[in-house]
Each structure stands twice: as C-alpha cells, then as structure tokens.
C-alpha cells in the first residue's frame, strides 16, 4: 500500500534523504506502508528517521502531534479527514491517501 506525505512546514532541505523539497516551504515523500497502518504509526516511523519531524511535527515521547498544527488526509484530491489534533489511533490509512501537515493558522 502506498501513501504520500506533504509537509508545508518550511523544513526545506533539512529533511534530506528521501524527501523532495522543491522549495523551502514544502517537502514531499512517497512511502510504502503495511495494511492497517495508522497515522500515529506512520509519523512515529518518520520521526524516528527524520529528527526535524521529531522536533517540529510529531512528539515521540507523547506519541502525539505537536499543538498548533493542522493535519489532513486526502484521497483522490479530496479531504477525507481533517484534524487539528488528530485522532491518530482511529485513523487507519488507505492505499493512495495523501497526508498533509500545515501550520495551524494558515494565513489570511
């Protein structure tokens, strides 16, 4: 099963290997995950490999996203789930899901 992760967190090239960062603002990665993977499991895995994600997006100690983030899951370009503080245990990912992490206050 394949999912895509898109981080609008101004992390740029700090993430390094695996991520594509066409600009400092956005970083993207495609990943293969097992059936039944939750958002929590996915981000725990990412945070383990990428320290900037552990420092800014997912707190591994608390097993939770940091506050003041918006996390949304889209499928075929449409928003399926939109969570300021995600129900990370409840959300099981599906093939083709795209997960976007945005700053809470998105401007304007």
């Amino acid at each position, binding site marked *: 099963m394949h999912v895509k992760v*898109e981080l*609008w967190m*101004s992390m740029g090239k700090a993430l390094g290997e695996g991520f594509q960062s*066409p*600009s*400092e*603002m*956005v970083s993207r990665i495609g990943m293969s995950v097992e059936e039944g993977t939750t958002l929590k499991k996915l981000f725990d895995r990412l945070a383990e490999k990428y320290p900037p994600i552990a420092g800014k997006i997912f707190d591994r100690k608390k097993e939770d996203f940091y*506050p*003041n983030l*918006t996390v*949304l899951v*889209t499928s075929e*370009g*449409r*928003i399926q789930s*939109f*969570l*300021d*503080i995600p*129900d990370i245990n409840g959300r099981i990912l599906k093939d083709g899901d795209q997960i*976007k992490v*945005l*700053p*809470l*206050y*998105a*401007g*304007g």
Partner: protein
Amino acid sequence: MVNLSVSGYTGKILRVDLSKKRIWVEAIDEKTAQKWVGGVGFGAKYLYAEVPPGTQWSDPGNRLIWTTGPLSGTGVMGAATFNVCTKGPMTNLAGSSQANGFFGAYLKFSGFDGIIFEGRSANLVYLWIKEGKAEIRDANHLSGKDVWEVEDQLRKELGVRERDVSIFGIGPAGENRAYFAAIVGDRGHVAAHNGVGAVMGAKNLKAVVVDKGKRNIAIHDPERLKEKIKELFEFAKNFGVFYKWGTGGGFSTIYSLGSLPVKNYTTNIYPEHEKMNGQYMREHFKTRPAPCFLCGISHIREVTVTEGPYTGFVGEEPEYEQLAAWGPQIGNTDLGAVVMLTKEVDKLGLDCNESGWVVGWAMECFEKGIFTKKETDGLELTWGNVEAVRTLLNRIARREGYLGNLLANGVMRASQKIGGKAADWAIYAGKGVTPRGHDHRGRWSELFDGCVTNTSTIESSSGGYHPQLVDMPPVTDPFSHEEVSTLNANFNGIRQFDDCMGTCRLASSSPKLVLECFNAVTGRNWTLKDAFTVGKRIVNQLRVFNLRHGLKIEEERPSTRYGSIPIDGPTQGKNIMEKWPWMVENYYRLMGWDANGKPLPETLEKLDLIDLIEDLRGLR
C-alpha cells in the same frame, strides 16, 4: 474635565463637527473604559448612542468613529492599530474595520484615545492633529488625488519626514462614494470593510494627519508588560508562517484546504499556486522590511518585481488577500501583476476583497456573454487580462462608464440589477457583507460567521477557529454543521475583545498573552471570562443596533454561489447549505437570542445592556 485614572488611556476623545467646523474634546469616564475598553468597544458605544434608526450611511448624522485601544503605543509589538466604526454602505448597518501602521500610537502620543467625526463639510477638508490640538484645513487641492499622492503632498506642505506623521485618507473611490471604498494610509495600510471610505467621502473629509506626538502612555506595571511582550513575540514568531513568509506564506496551504478562490468559485484547481505564494515572492523578488510601529514580527515588506512583464515595478508586498484577489480569483498566474494591481487598488482606495469579487463576477459575465464589449466600453475582460482589470478598477473608483458605475455599488447590487443567471454567480453574504479573500466553501467557520456577523466582517472567527488558544477543546471536524454553528457561538467574543486593544492580530496571536498585556498596562486583573463578556457585550450592542436599523434575518445566509457545492478540488461535494436553517437556529439559541435573532432580555441583562431591552420592544 475629569481625568481617567486607569493607565493605558489618555482619557480624551476628539470631537469634530464637519458641518459647523467645530472641534472640542470630550472626557472618557471610568465606567466607559471599564465597560467598553477601547477600539470596537468605544465604536459600538458611540455608534449606538449617537446614530438613531432612520439615519442613512451617507447622512451627515452618521458618525465616523476612529478609536485606539489601551495597548496602542505601549510597546506591544505593532500596537498602533486603530478601529473604524460607522454605519456603512455595503450593509447600511454597523461596520467595524481596523488598520495597522502608525496612526493608533501617534494619536495617543498626541493626546487622544479616538476621534469622532459628524456632519458634512461644505468643501473637501483634512484634519491636522498636533500636541493635543486639531485644525480643519482646506483640501480642495487634493481632490481626485490617489492616496499615495495625498501622503506625498501633505508631507511636503507640512515640511515633515515620512515617519514624523501618520496619514490616512481616501482616494478617488471614497470621493466618488464607491460602496466599497476604503480608508488607506501609511503607504498601504487599510481599514477596508463596509465602505468606511465612502462614509469619509460623504463627509467631504479627504485625510487625517497626526503628528507622532511626545506624550508617554502611563503603564501600571512596566516590568510585567516587558516580560509579556517578550513572550508574545516568541509566540507570534512561531505561530504559523507570517514571521518568515508574510501572510502570503499561507497561500499554498490555503489551496491544500480547498479555500483558495479560483475564477469566481467556478473551480478549485490552480496548479500555479507554488509560483504565487509568499515564499516564492521573498525568494525571487527583491524585498525589504517595512514594519508597523515598533514591530519585530515585521510581516510587511516593500517589494520590487524581478520577473515577467512588470519587472522593476515597486510596490508594497501583497498580503494574502491581495494575492488571492489578483491571482486565482481573476485567473492570473503572473505574480508581478499581483504587485501592480495591489498598489493600484490601494492607491485608488478600494477594498481589495470586494474588488476581487466584483471583477471576478464581471469576468465570468464576460465569458458567458452577459457582458460584451458594449457594456465594458471596449475592455476585453477575459480571465487573466490584468491590464483590463487595472482599467476597470480605475473606472470603478471614479464611477466612469456603464460598468464602472454599476460595479461601484458592489457585487450584490450589481448582480441583482443584471438579474437572470448572472445574479446567481455573485459572491457575497446576504446582508451585503463582503467575504474575505478565500473560498469559504472550504472554511465553513468563516462562511457562517460572515453571514451572521454584526460587524460587517468576521466577528467570531479569525482564519477559522482555534479554541485551544483560549483553553477550549480543539476543532475536530470543520465540515460538521453542528460543530461549526456551536463553536461560532461559543468562541464569539474574544476576537471582539482583541479588536478593543489597538493591537495587530498577527503580531499578537495569543489572546491569553494579549489579556496579560492588558492587565499589566491597566492594572486590572481580568480573566478570559471577563474578556469574553466584553466581546459578547459588543456583539449584542451591534446586534441591537442592526435590528433597529433594518436587519432582516432572512438575509443571514450566503448568496447562491457563495453557498454552492464545490465541483472539484479538496472540498468537492461538501455542502454547508444542507443544514443551514438548523445551524442558524442553533447559533441563535447558543447566543441567547430568540428564534428571530433578537437578544433575549436575560442575555442583555447579563451583559449589562439593560437599556437595550426597551429599545428592542416593538421590533418583530
């Protein structure tokens, strides 16, 4: 005159009767400061007391109320915001709008917490304020000039440098009473909503100039304030993307959320967004900081275009709403053209939001054959034709030609006049309220807020709701009819308290820390509950004002297009209208209003608005 003993205020309001060319000073008493705090609170108090039902927005009897807040000029970052409150033409109901820059701080340093204009001058005038005194001066030589020219001319005449004074005024749009004329100053700061610039034009008031002043503002606990300012700065730096990329930094994330307006809401697909956002601008164009008064966040910059047909053009960096209006909403993909149109709309003194809706609607009408070159007087009004847009904006501001005059009354009135299918394509909230520059079909909180508001713009929300900032449970589903309607009511109040402070919401993004600054300045010991009470008092005062001035609750709904279902993009298929009547009914109930949207006597009593109970009797 009794001196107000609470720190953070000058205790004086400058009164200006433009008909009689009379100026006097009025004291603010303790009770007023306690009950209404400042900013929009003072505006709501004076507007209600002095503008009786039957007064039209353009009547000399209407008031134009400019007020600062207790934090203006205290050293809180960017705290130079002032609030404008009046009865405005877009809704012919109450309107409240804020502008940043320097004015709020300079006015207090010159000895006043606010200015109230009444009457109508026989000739065009400006007001000059210095060292506790004010003078009405002739401005006939400024007639027809844009806001930049007015600033240049007045500084030259007064022999002052750029930051020696703060100047806010109107351009051709205000003089010609375009319904969405704004008040613009300090090189691109704008009080935009509900045609406050048209009210200024109706009073024949071209500009207000205030000297930077010399007075200190008394602060109850300077050490505590210093500490809280530091905390507020750290919070704001890390809240969102403003510090690094300006409000344009949110452009692409707003696209991800399905909230970017594209071609008058006919689609939500705009793949060019990554070349139109704040980061692209700061990395590819030349920019330099142009901060507001004492602001370390400094999200505003001057920009020089370095790519495309407008290379070399210098203007203010477009904020998110200008990027949305002059990019996707009109089908444009050239960022340099956005800089050009941003400066144009500000110079003319127009609200960029309504300008975007009205131009986008006219473009759709042109595409679909409702307007031809006959109606446009030769303009090829195709999507993305930015030079045609520039010409059209100038015609609107001067009410020139058939289309310029039609569109100058705003998109609601223009579309109603044209009628037929075109009437369904206009984007507005039913009372005539202009939505801010998003596709709110992807931000339900703001769509709902804009329809039930009493301020003529967002009242409860601010970029959606963030209830965790005031210790409430966070949003779980922003597309839940139940959650949106309930949160709109529960969260309502704190943002109006914000608008009493004289601070900028971007530099002061934590309501709790703003409250702590307020307590440090004034010596009060208010809680969040107290702040909510003040905010809800303002909302209810304006609600009763609006009801007495003809508010129709059946108009508290979006226009057909504004409330339509997106056909593509991230929010495809989401339908806020499915439960609209229930949402309104639930909201009224939670606000303590009856089924007709009238505040119940017990609600008004609880908010110390007992006098309003009698005023409401007899209204349906």
